[in-house]
């Protein structure tokens, strides 16, 4: 392989035939960009403290509000996981905890982390903050609806948290809420707890729909001049596709929540079969519990990608910026995101292999599941090829990205095991499953969130986070997460079932004691390490070094605002005009190693920029 840059593959920036949108009318001026076709957005500026910081219509403030609320629920989820690990590793210290408490903690930890933490953080937090900035819009297209979206989410979180304090406590049915046991007496929280959970989920769906419409229309209909879909940062592509998935998947959750609420409150039997309890036939009869599983997983599987796709997009941008190289195979990356999104609607029943389904049905879903590995693997290769011979800066952001790739590949490979029916059946409901999904959709997206926080904090707050603390945070989290989840694969292989309060007198009791203690200690340390970030943020806000504009020398539009942090309206007097994709790093012949998206072709006429 030669070190020479292949000149035939590069493109001399001379004409702008991709810009005019209609073939046959090539404008001879190379810097020509079509005039604006949408009028200036009518923005309502805040007049009071309440309008500016509480009921705010600025997408950036809403993004931060979403972020803080989601982080708060995430910390609650973290504390619940500590309590679970305390019981599993050191039951003698957890005397205050009954089996009912444990089930409730498992349930709430799962639901909080998947829906109220990761989904809200990626789409509500990063989506709100980054979409208008990255596509060059002044704000989201419907700022008022956007504000309602956050407050609906806030109420959903409040209702969820309220369920901790009602008689009977929160629901303990497992985050999948499978009927019939979810709403039957004997399950913890089968009274008010489950009702509040279902109401909270419905509110979340309504609130998310308001936000999702904003994200989609802003990306489709409010891009700045020159910003074609294929010039958008992959972050925007990831969030966009995840939003499309959410708009089509959340309806199934809403419907199942409504039906289960009616089963609970009005004694309907949508999901309830005939049930004998202590020799007595209950009021219920004739419903189908499997119907709930289908509805739930028609939401539940796309939900995995609602969390994963924004992470894919964000990590692509971070890797490209911090390796000073264009993202390898941009178009392939876009199509992989879209392809994964499309396929994710045809795999849901792989969560139901043990529900007694027809083997041919399982065969179909195993096939579609394994097909998803193709675009996913393409993305992993592209990340590695982006790094290959890049000018890699090993800073905190890059460390998180590398950590993401490793954990994601790890979790992806165990996914291949579980996607096959014959392998899944013995592994089903063991700690192998726990290890798999925590690696692939817990730790991996979390690594991206952390990298994104270190990357975009200078933009949001105008100050640089401490690198030293960041590296401590990373190494403890990375090594600690492996200490937690690697042994869990082994626990799964020897057959330890998940969601069990204790192992009683089973042979697991003795053989896994040491390992469970080890995992628990690691979990305590990793959880505590997250507060390094909280400390880092507080310290930086107080005494941190002021960030220059565009500290990472990135190309995308969010770094080219009129002020840092950006003000309401983002770009000052004039919106930016885009001439290229955001990945022109280390272009041969260019003055700097980065060419901002706003740089006109004539300014870089003698360089070998790629045609985008």
């Amino acid at each position, binding site marked *: 392989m030669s070190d020479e840059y292949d000149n035939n593959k590069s493109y001399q920036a001379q004409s702008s035939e991709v810009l005019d*949108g209609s073939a046959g009318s090539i404008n001879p001026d190379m810097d020509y960009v079509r005039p604006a076709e949408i009028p200036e957005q009518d923005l309502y500026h805040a007049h009071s403290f309440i309008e500016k910081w509480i009921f705010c219509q600025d997408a950036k403030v809403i993004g931060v509000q979403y972020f803080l609320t989601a982080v708060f629920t995430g910390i609650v989820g973290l504390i619940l996981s500590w309590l679970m690990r305390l019981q599993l590793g050191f039951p003698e210290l957890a005397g205050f905890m009954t089996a009912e408490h444990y089930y409730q903690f498992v349930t709430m930890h799962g639901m909080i982390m998947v829906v109220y933490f990761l989904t809200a953080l990626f789409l509500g937090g990063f989506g709100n903050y980054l979409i208008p900035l990255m596509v060059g819009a002044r704000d989201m297209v419907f700022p008022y609806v956007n504000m309602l979206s956050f407050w609906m989410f806030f109420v959903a979180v409040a209702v969820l948290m309220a369920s901790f304090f009602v008689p009977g406590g929160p629901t303990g049915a497992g985050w999948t809420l499978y009927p019939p046991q979810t709403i039957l007496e004997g399950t913890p929280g089968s009274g008010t707890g489950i009702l509040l959970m279902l109401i909270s989920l419905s509110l979340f769906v309504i609130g998310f729909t308001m936000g999702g419409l904003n994200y989609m229309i802003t990306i489709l209909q409010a891009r700045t001049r020159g910003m074609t879909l294929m010039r958008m940062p992959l972050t925007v592509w990831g969030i966009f596709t995840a939003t499309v998935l959410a708009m089509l998947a959340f309806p199934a959750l809403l419907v199942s929540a409504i039906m289960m609420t009616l089963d609970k409150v009005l004694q309907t039997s949508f999901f309830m079969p005939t049930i004998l309890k202590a020799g007595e036939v209950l009021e219920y009869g004739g419903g189908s519990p499997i119907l709930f599983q289908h509805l739930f997983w028609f939401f539940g599987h796309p939900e995995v990608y609602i969390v994963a796709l924004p992470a894919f997009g964000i990590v692509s941008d971070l890797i490209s910026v911090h390796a000073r190289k264009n993202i390898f195979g941009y178009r392939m990356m876009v199509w992989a995101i879209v392809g994964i999104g499309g396929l994710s609607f045809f795999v849901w029943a792989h969560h139901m292999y043990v529900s007694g389904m027809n083997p041919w049905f399982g065969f179909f879903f195993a096939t579609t599941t394994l097909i998803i590995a193709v675009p996913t693997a393409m993305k992993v290769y592209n990340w590695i090829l982006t790094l290959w011979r890049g000018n890699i800066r090993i800073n905190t952001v890059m460390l998180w990205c590398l950590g993401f790739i490793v954990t994601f590949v790890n979790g992806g490979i165990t996914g291949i095991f579980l996607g096959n029916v014959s392998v899944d059946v013995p592994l089903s409901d063991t700690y192998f499953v726990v290890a798999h999904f925590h690696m692939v959709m817990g730790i991996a997206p979390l690594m991206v969130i952390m990298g994104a926080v270190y990357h975009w904090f200078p933009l949001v707050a105008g100050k640089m986070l401490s690198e030293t603390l960041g590296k401590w945070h990373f190494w403890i989290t990375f090594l600690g997460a492996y200490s937690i989840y690697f042994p869990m694969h082994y626990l799964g292989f020897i057959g330890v079932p998940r969601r069990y309060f204790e192992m009683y007198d089973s042979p697991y009791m003795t053989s896994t004691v040491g390992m469970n203690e080890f995992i628990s200690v690691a979990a305590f340390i990793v959880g505590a390490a997250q507060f390094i970030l909280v400390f880092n943020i507080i310290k930086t806000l107080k005494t941190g070094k002021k960030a220059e504009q565009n500290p990472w020398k990135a190309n995308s539009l969010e770094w080219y605002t009129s002020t840092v942090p950006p003000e309401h309206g983002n770009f000052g007097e004039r919106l930016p005009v885009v001439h290229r994709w955001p990945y022109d790093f280390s272009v041969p012949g260019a003055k700097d190693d980065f060419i901002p998206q706003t740089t006109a072709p004539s300014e870089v006429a003698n360089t070998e920029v790629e045609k985008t």
Partner: protein
Amino acid sequence: MSEQKIDGFELKPGFKGMASDTGSDQTMFKGVHWGKAMMWIFLLSDTFVFSCFLISYMKGRGSTIVDWPNTSEVFSLYVGGVPVPLLLIAIMTFVLITSSGTMALAVKYGYEKNRKMCGWLILATAVGGLTFVGMQVFEWSKLIHEGVRPWGNPFGAAQFGSFFFMITGFHGFHVSIGVIFLFIYTYKVFAGHYESKKRGWFTKMKGDYVEIEILGLYWHFVDLVWVFIFAFFYLW
């Protein structure tokens, strides 16, 4: 919108046009108002909600152990002692479809800036929607009077009442929301808010007659959903 001119952009028909619009900058749906695009996407999402309801209904009806009630008997009205099946539903459907027609006319007169006609037609649509909801209330109370409950009924499978009240209730909720907005828009049109560019009460945004069309999209969608509910509940 075929005559619409986009500066520096040639709008082409067919698949080629779609590809060129998609590949262009700024907007994907050329000349389409933000609110209109939003409503279309919301309706797509809402379609999934109703699809989930109706698919659950099919699954539930298909797997009950008790026979499903004979719908042409349950839903019939007695006129002079003779049972007429589907009489009420026929009237309800007629009213709702008619209100779709008045809605479409309101959109037309709105774009023609014919404020009076537009306002009266929106009001007519609202009254049509209200009549529909009223007849639904009548139908519900009649069924409840005959002993149909969400958790059981004297005619057959308990799921009949469950699905019926849930799905028609959810649809009726949609109609009611639409009626509320229709009344608000009636006021806005008659008060001339779209001419004076008065800012909205909550959103602080200036309005335009395109809002009538956006509400129209919603109204037609609610009608379309009713056609499916009609087919699945009353004809099956």
